[in-house]
């Protein structure tokens, strides 16, 4: 927890909750998301790994769920998560002939504090949010018989989107989110290969919401 902002972000909803005066409305969301990964690494390092060798993490799509709780006419807190999507990893540089080298699933719940623009009854309300993303990498499979470990990541997340109310309960939403997801990789087989991956994910999501 190097980022001092994160405890503050976590504390803010609590404070707001304690003040909690306004109409409390919950919303559940379900939709699809496309995760555009623009990963960058510090380069793949290890015995016998030619200089310039690297790995690239591919994009993925998944089903997402969200729970949003209104704290005030403009502020809400949202927990977003999805079914862990599978990302393929491919080799690049001098080792590109290896093509796909591994696959990994990531479970990335994210807690946002959202601010909605416009008045409370408006059908169309744009919003922005800031929060904390936690990413855990699971079900890591190597094509090369390696044991691959990826450290967990905790980092800032931001989002911007729009909610559209169809009626009092149902609505549509679309959002674009980015998160700071970094992980240390250790791949072990005949040798030990390491790198630090900055995933730089851009998540486009859209779906249906229901208020209660």
């Amino acid at each position, binding site marked *: 927890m190097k980022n001092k902002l994160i405890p503050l972000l976590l504390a803010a*909803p609590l404070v707001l909750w304690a003040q909690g005066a306004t109409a409390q409305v*919950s919303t559940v969301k379900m939709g699809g998301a496309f995760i555009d990964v623009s990963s960058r690494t510090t380069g793949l390092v290890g015995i*016998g790994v030619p200089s310039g060798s690297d790995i690239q993490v591919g994009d993925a799509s998944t089903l997402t769920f969200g*729970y949003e709780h209104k704290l005030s006419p403009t502020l809400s807190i949202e927990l977003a998560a999805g079914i862990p999507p599978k990302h393929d990893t491919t080799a690049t540089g001098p080792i590109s002939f290896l093509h796909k080298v591994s696959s990994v699933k990531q479970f990335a719940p994210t807690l946002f504090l959202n601010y909605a623009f416009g008045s409370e009854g408006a059908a169309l309300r744009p919003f922005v949010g800031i929060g904390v993303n936690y990413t855990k990498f699971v079900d890591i499979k190597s094509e090369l018989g390696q044991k691959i470990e990826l450290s967990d990541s905790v980092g800032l997340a931001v989002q911007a989107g729009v909610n559209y109310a169809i009626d009092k309960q149902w609505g549509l939403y679309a959002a674009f989110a980015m998160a700071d997801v970094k992980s240390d990789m250790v791949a072990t087989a*005949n040798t030990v290969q390491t790198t630090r991956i900055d995933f730089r994910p851009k998540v486009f999501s859209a779906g249906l919401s229901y208020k209660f």
Partner: protein
Amino acid sequence: MKRIIYWGSALGLAAFLAACGGGDATLAGSVAPVGAPTTKASFSAVVSFGDSLSDVGTYAPATSMTGNGAAPYLGGKFTNNSATSKVWVENIAASLGVAITPAEMGFAGQSMPCPFVVNCTAYGQGGSRVTDPNGIGHSTGALTVPMKTQIANHLARFSSFKASDLIMVFGGANDVFTQFGGFVAAATQIQTDAATGKINAEQANLALFAAQSQAQSEMKKAALELAGYVRDQILAKGGKYVVVITLPDIADTPFGNSLPASVRPSLTDLSLVFNLWLRDGLSQQPLEIVDGFAMFKDLYANPAKYGITNNTVPACDATKIAAVTGGAVKDGSSLFCNSTAGAPFNAIRAGADVNTWAFADGVHPTTGGHKVISNAIAAQLKIFGWQ
């Protein structure tokens, strides 16, 4: 109420996440040994396991000047041979005031165990591998008793190690040569196939990758086996003062330098893979590891620091060795290289100095080279507090 529970768990989750952030993926080979003795010892023997670098004369009978296996011997050690020429193991033993002689002498099916009756504790033999009895030169007569059996032979004689034994373990280079040979053969075939259009460039790359992985996998296996012997057959059998020396970069030898630049890194990697898993297998074991890789790297990079003036040309002359042996030895092996001044069988290259040139042949050190090694290891023994 339901909502409060929900938030409670959400915050609990966040706190949990905060606690686990950062990760702690473990790196193989990164955990050091621990618990080796730190007290001065009075050693009664140096017990050495290894290969040609630690061989104090196993194959002397093969260099018999009378041709019948009997003394006098032309050579016998993998260095320039003379009355005063010593390998590093002998220098260490001498500095501790103990004698060390070959555990076995012989060649071509002939073998004499403990020829000098006392302190026959130099088990290293030219060509020996870690586990495989079929070492380098075995098919042409070399005994190449593997390190596994060297240790077993010591236990058969003495049943256990003594607290007053200084135990030196330095091997794996012949596993490197074996795996490197296999890799080069595979790589040559792959390149031929690619050149003749039998396979495309990508297939060639994949085949090279597979050949490299195979060689590395064998090095990992040998290293973990050696670490296992050290743990189970030395430490668990009374070994107290135990030094394990990691492999040098064989690409820095005259042999290594004779290789194409594209191939040399593969040779380096095999030592590195071996050292990685040797360290991994010896993690948290009560012994000391001497970083042979770094030690030899420094010698290669800064020869003047060690009084070395030439670390690229063998001091032994292959043509002279061939002449002395009547054409029997054509590869310039220092096993047959005698450096006695003025002797008719002297095979030292014109202008070479066995005290300031590092190599006797393509891979083995001169008297001076061995002195550098023994000095470095003696310095380590002081650092360990054993001397």
